[in-house]
């Protein structure tokens, strides 16, 4: 750390994470028990505890991040989303299904489902806004600006484009959505920037994607092949045969292992591409995350989860984040005295819709 006596000025921004597996196993263990005891209501507080620890274990320039969110905020956000979004949608769909004639019912249900797809993007944006607003470093908050609806509609549009192109647009969609988010993200009053220009896209995003597609095709080939050999096509009722279904799952499980080798390169490439596209002030970021890192993580995490009977799931997620931090490199310095507090404190409650739609995807 290069810090002047008064602590202002420029600071080297190396990213580190010193989380320990033991601690996360313990958190995973007791929060599972509390979650069970409280009919899962504890889950919001559990997530908050985990984030507090994970953020505090992550240091930038030797100074830890701080997560300032509260379990109650997540709980309230969830209740709001259930009663203002989820229930009305479910009721609309059910009412259409059971009270309307077929054609108006089909229209209402189609509109409701389209809305749900847009809302997924909205929900993800809102969750990110909440998380950044609850992340603090050196007393200064992060902030996500921009419109959740505009993000949701854009993500929906890109999603359609991805469907129309049979998935070919997917990596471009991911990079463009990252650009949208980071170009409206701030540390205090200092904006992040995301460069998605062709000159900045130096990683073999599409080359690695081809390998991933080949892997996915092989996986489906394996699945259908196995179903054919097991006679599940000829006699669909055989799906009720426990032994055959178990065999199918065993084959698919093995197939998933092989699939990891095909998609790891692409995933690592994406992480490297996204990281190097982000900058903050004069600071550039870079990641050395490799396909081999992903393969290693996948196998060791699987063992971790199996041998801890599932309690290790949190520790497994932590290990992914820890690896991402350890592979991160940061060049340049920030003039910290010139960075002022973020404009807004962020939303009062958080992530409700992500919970209601169950798309949170972990910590």
């Amino acid at each position, binding site marked *: 750390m290069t*810090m002047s*006596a*008064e*602590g*202002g000025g420029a600071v080297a921004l190396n990213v580190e994470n010193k989380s320990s597996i033991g601690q996360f196993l313990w958190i995973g263990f007791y929060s599972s028990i*509390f979650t069970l*005891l*409280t*009919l*899962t*209501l*504890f*889950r919001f*507080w559990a997530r908050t505890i985990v984030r*507090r*620890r994970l953020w*505090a*274990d992550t240091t930038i320039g030797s*100074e*830890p991040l*701080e997560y300032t969110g509260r*379990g109650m905020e997540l709980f309230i956000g*969830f209740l709001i989303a*259930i009663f203002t979004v*989820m*229930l009305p*949608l*479910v009721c609309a*769909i*059910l009412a259409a*299904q*059971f*009270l*309307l004639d077929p054609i108006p*019912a089909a229209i209402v249900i189609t509109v409701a*489902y389209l809305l*749900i797809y847009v809302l997924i993007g909205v929900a993800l944006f809102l969750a990110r806004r909440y998380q950044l607003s609850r992340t*603090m*470093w*050196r*007393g*200064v*908050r992060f902030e996500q600006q921009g419109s959740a609806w505009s993000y949701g509609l854009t993500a929906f549009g890109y999603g359609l484009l991805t469907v129309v192109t049979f998935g070919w647009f997917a990596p471009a969609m991911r990079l463009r959505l990252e650009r949208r988010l980071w170009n409206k993200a701030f*540390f*205090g009053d200092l904006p992040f920037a995301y460069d998605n220009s062709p000159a900045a896209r130096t990683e073999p995003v599409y080359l690695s994607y081809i390998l991933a597609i080949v892997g996915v095709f092989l996986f489906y080939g394996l699945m259908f092949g196995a179903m054919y050999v097991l006679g599940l096509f000829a006699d669909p009722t055989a799906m*009720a045969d426990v032994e055959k279904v178990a065999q199918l799952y065993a084959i698919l499980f093995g197939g998933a292992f092989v699939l990891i080798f095909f998609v790891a390169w692409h995933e690592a490439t994406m992480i490297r591409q996204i990281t190097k596209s982000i900058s903050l002030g004069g600071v550039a970021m870079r990641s050395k995350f490799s396909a081999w890192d992903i393969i290693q993580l996948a196998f060791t995490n699987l063992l971790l989860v199996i041998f801890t009977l599932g309690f290790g799931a949190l520790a497994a997620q932590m290990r992914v984040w820890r690896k991402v931090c350890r592979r991160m490199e940061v060049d340049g310095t*920030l003039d*910290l*005295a*010139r*960075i*002022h*507090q973020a404009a807004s404190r962020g939303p009062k409650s958080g992530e409700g819709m992500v*919970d*209601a*739609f*169950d798309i949170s995807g972990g910590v």
Partner: protein
Amino acid sequence: MALRGRFHDGETATEHLVEVTFDADGVEIVGAGVRTYWRRQDLQLIDRAGGWRLGASTAPDARLMLAKSAETDAALRSLGVVGRDALRGGMLVGGLIVAGLALAGLVFVAIPLAAEPLARMTPRDVEARLGDNLGKQVNVFMRPCPSARAANDALAPLLERLETSAAPGFDVQVTFVRAKVPNAFAMPGGRVMVTSGLVETLDDPEQLAAVLAHEIGHVAARDGMVALYRNAGLGILLEIVTGGSGVAQQVVLLGGQLAELRYTRGQEERADVSAIATMRASGYDPAALARAFEALKAFKSDEDRPAPSRLRELNIPEWLQSHPGIDRRIARARAAATPATAVPLDPEAWRIVKRACG
């Protein structure tokens, strides 16, 4: 005693090196460009891993970092900053357990209790429309018998007589559907599905009249609506508790539940009582209900013998599945035996009904 610490003022990202002095009421923080006092009641312990990290509710973004030492530990303990969080954690978990229990009460007590008043409050035309749509959806899986029109015509006088006696408040419509399993079930709004298996299994028109009287009992009690509210309420609550299995899945799940309405034992027994009264009022012998149950029971034991797959068990008639107390119900119907004064269907009409599904 002045301790050295680091201070983030929450206004810029600058770090200040500060001198910190504890007294009985709080802590004074002094450095270049910094002079502030945090009172003990405003002090918050943010983190203790790798050193003390303190905040104050009066300056929510500011942070004071102190190294752990005997002096700081003692000062923070005497200010009551340490130890507060453990108590709060215990209260939180306790409160959440109580909330969880309340939710369980809601699931197992309040929703089943609320379902009946809700059903009664539902306008009858809404229930009828809902039953129509539901019936159409059931008919996707259970095809109506194509040549049932003659059977429906032959059945009409019997149905009318039962409706006059029972006054269910809905227009009762019988739909014959093709399914091997002998079963009859009442949808919301008065639609009654009768499977081809049931028509084949029953021995005489009195048994059919008894089964229909039982279903009309469900219609009159609006049991379909009650079950619907109960299932929908449970599904939504489950969603809240478990945190979402996804809207789409939820809707499918609810739809699935609606399509196979299941009645409670209490509802079944009330429908039996109602059937006995209806049979008697129509001039038929209520004991026919007992004989209908027995015919169905015989079918079940026939089915049971080969049973190669556990899945087959899911196909046992709903009548028997949800009615563990079948023998008691048979006994009750038999005890209600009253000499018949009328014949539900003449032999020709019964022959036509028997051929409802070809």
